[in-house]
């Protein structure tokens, strides 16, 4: 039997080849210890928007036509999830600080346009189609790296796990997140339109994430090239030695 989650996962699997390749280019970059703050900054832009977007999605559930079979459940789910995710962006600011990048400097920098596009699409669907679209976004984004993988990265690059707290905390808190999300999705009485919107949202999320990961690599190329465009992370040279927190 083709479950809702299997349908979404198979669709995402079809289209995420390039995204996986880009994510790998970031994690296995020969200068990851220098690139990592740029990676954190990009993720900060995404993470900081998550809890507010879920709260808006919950509010929008009140606007769906009467008789919608899942609006009430969905509203509760988004609110609970927004509470769980609240404040996670602070881990990223802490990690950036451990690389010598002060919080105020990170907050002053404009998020990538690709991050705005990634999240902005969701607002369109929430306001103009149906807030269930956000489940497609969650299905793609909420997949934490494994602890084993992060430990390997730390050993290979010298980046202390203490400076990877956002990744580490998600690996520890959400190791079964994908299975739990899929079980939740499968229990819902989705209409065909709901299913399609979740799937289309997931497809768009993969496409926008490709731009985000391309931007991470391209911004880093410019940062590491003195003739390139300056960003707040251009100078002074990123110092791993400043990482001192323990998890």
């Amino acid at each position: 039997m083709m479950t809702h989650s299997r349908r979404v996962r198979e669709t995402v699997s079809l289209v995420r080849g390039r995204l996986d390749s880009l994510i790998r280019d970031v994690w296995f970059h020969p200068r990851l210890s220098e690139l990592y703050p740029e990676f954190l900054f990009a993720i900060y832009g995404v993470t900081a928007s998550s809890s507010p977007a879920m709260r808006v999605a919950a509010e929008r559930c009140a606007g769906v036509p009467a008789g919608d079979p899942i609006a009430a459940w969905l509203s509760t789910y988004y609110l609970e999830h927004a509470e769980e995710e609240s404040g996670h962006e602070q881990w990223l600011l802490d990690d950036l600080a451990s690389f010598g990048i002060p919080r105020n400097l990170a907050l002053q920098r404009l998020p990538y346009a690709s991050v705005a596009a990634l999240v902005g699409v969701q607002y369109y669907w929430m306001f103009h189609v149906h807030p269930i679209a956000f489940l497609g976004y969650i299905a793609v984004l909420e997949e934490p790296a494994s602890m084993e993988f992060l430990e390997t990265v730390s050993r290979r690059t010298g980046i202390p796990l203490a400076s990877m707290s956002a990744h580490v905390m998600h690996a520890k808190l959400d190791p079964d997140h994908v299975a739990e999300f899929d079980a939740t999705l499968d229990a819902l009485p989705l209409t065909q339109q709901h299913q399609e919107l979740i799937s289309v949202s997931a497809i768009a999320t993969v496409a926008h994430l490709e731009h985000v990961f391309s931007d991470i690599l391209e911004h880093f190329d410019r940062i590491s090239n003195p003739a390139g465009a300056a960003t707040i992370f251009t100078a002074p040279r990123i110092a791993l030695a400043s990482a001192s927190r323990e998890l």
Partner: protein
Amino acid sequence: MTNVERLQQAGLVQTHIPLTDDEIKSVNALSSAEIDALISVRAKLGDAFFQRKVKDGDSHRMGTVMV
């Protein structure tokens, strides 16, 4: 016209890098709206090209972003 043929016509599936049988089955199970979305975002399909350097299971170990 099948879904695979629509995607081939749109240039999203390269004839010299064929989809696997499982991928073809997944594509043909998609609705018209989902195929339209794939075409809209110009999604390139199939593991054969992009995942040449990503070993099986890597995508799960690396994660995506987390929110």
